[in-house]
């Protein structure tokens, strides 16, 4: 098993431990074993950020969907992401903090995945026609909950956050489409990472405000 093959199934290995081939590669390859250790550490730290509740199933589904679009995980069917039971009570900002942490993990995975690609000379996407206009992005369920948090602490800022969340979601949608059109495009991946980074920043800033 090569490093590239191993890293294709990396999210599952972090989650479940992997099969015999994958375990053998993990034992023999210091690069991949360091990587798995790092990702497990990040996952453990993320759990510390959500001491009271797990993210909703929609969050997992959203991340799974994003990772599938990126080609980082196999399409659903044998969903290996956990589907936790959501408690009835909405527990302040911790849950959204967890979502921000998960966004950062998603960025990390995309960054790592891009870094693990073999070097290619990129030429196709730049000269190709502009991507077709994607459907305008709105705000999703997690965004709505974030906006509720913002409303509670700073009602005047809700419109600002909503407007900027829509802009960032549009950026993510555009970048995802560019990646889908040319999966080898370094430029498109850079934009996708940047877009997720912008969204993570919005969540962090909103939560910093609400936890003050």
């Amino acid at each position, binding site marked *: 098993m090569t490093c590239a093959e191993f890293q294709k199934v990396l999210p599952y290995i972090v989650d479940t431990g992997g099969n015999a081939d994958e375990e053998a590669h993990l034992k023999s390859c210091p690069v991949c074993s360091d990587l798995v250790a790092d990702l497990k550490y990040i996952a453990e730290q993320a759990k510390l950020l959500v001491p009271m509740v797990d993210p909703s199933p929609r969050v997992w589904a959203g991340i799974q969907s994003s990772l599938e679009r990126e080609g980082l995980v196999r399409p659903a069917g044998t969903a290996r992401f956990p589907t936790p039971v959501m408690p009835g009570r909405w527990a302040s900002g911790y849950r959204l903090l967890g979502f921000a942490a998960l966004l950062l993990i998603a960025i990390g995975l995309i960054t790592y995945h891009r870094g693990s690609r073999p070097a290619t000379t990129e030429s196709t996407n730049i000269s190709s026609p502009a991507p077709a206009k994607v459907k305008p992005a709105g705000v999703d369920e997690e965004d709505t909950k974030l906006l509720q948090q913002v409303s509670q602490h700073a009602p005047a800022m809700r419109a600002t956050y909503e407007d900027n969340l829509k*802009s960032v979601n549009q950026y993510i949608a555009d970048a995802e489409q560019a990646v889908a059109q040319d999966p080898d495009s370094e430029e498109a991946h850079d934009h996708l990472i940047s877009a997720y980074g912008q969204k993570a920043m919005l969540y962090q800033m909103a939560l910093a405000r609400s936890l003050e």
Partner: protein
Amino acid sequence: MASMTRATRLGLVVALATCSAFAADKQKEFRYNAGPGASLTVVNEFGSVTVRPGAGRQVVIAATLHSDKVEVDSSQKGNRIEVHSRLLASPKSDDARVDYEIRVPADIMLSVRADDGPIRVEGVRGDLTLEGDAAEVTVQDCGNGHVHVRTVKGPIHLSNISNGHVEVTSVGGDVALNAVTGPKVTVSTTKGNIRYSGDFAGGGDFILNSHSGDIEVTLPTSASVDLSARSISGSVQQDFPLQQKTHTSFQPTPGRSFAGTSNTGASSVQLRSFSGKIRVKKQ
């Protein structure tokens, strides 16, 4: 005579109103001794924060409170100084406003969160972390440390920043950099425009990135840069004399991307916009 009387009455009313407005403002001052490596954290939801270097090793915090519905908590633990504006009820933003004028040792590590701002920092050489949702952030004559600035929609102005690790992020705020140099300078926006004026000195890595915001770079012919500009669905315009590179990691396309060097190409400059316009022009 009647008009004189009216004028006098009007004057009295204005004077009284002015006096009562000043009477509502309350001044507070805090002084601390700060050793080398000291840090200062300021959290202020409504109102301005201005930080300048002062004399000696003292931190002097002058707070102007605009109502009795807000108070200031200030404390020092070791080398860590913290100042928080605390809302006592849920007042309107005008009532909750506190304006800070702060003097610090120039090497202090400074962290400011002022949601509405504005935030202004001058002459501080330590690490800076500045955040504000809608705050206008101005940083001037700083450097030799990290300069991290984040806003949601507040505009950001950086000028005369030398040898700094600069990281600027804003979703909707415009970012203007003038004579900003350092080993690593990164600016990222979604729809905010980015404007850079200067020579990209220092042999560093400069990355300016936006989604729909325009990027405009103005540099002198003395600049030593290895520059690339790329837009996926926007446009790229070059009015600066660059030597075209023979080997690039992408195929330059007129109007969409180009890559070239000037002088020895000491600094790496990457300009990326998804759908915005990129323009590089001569100073």
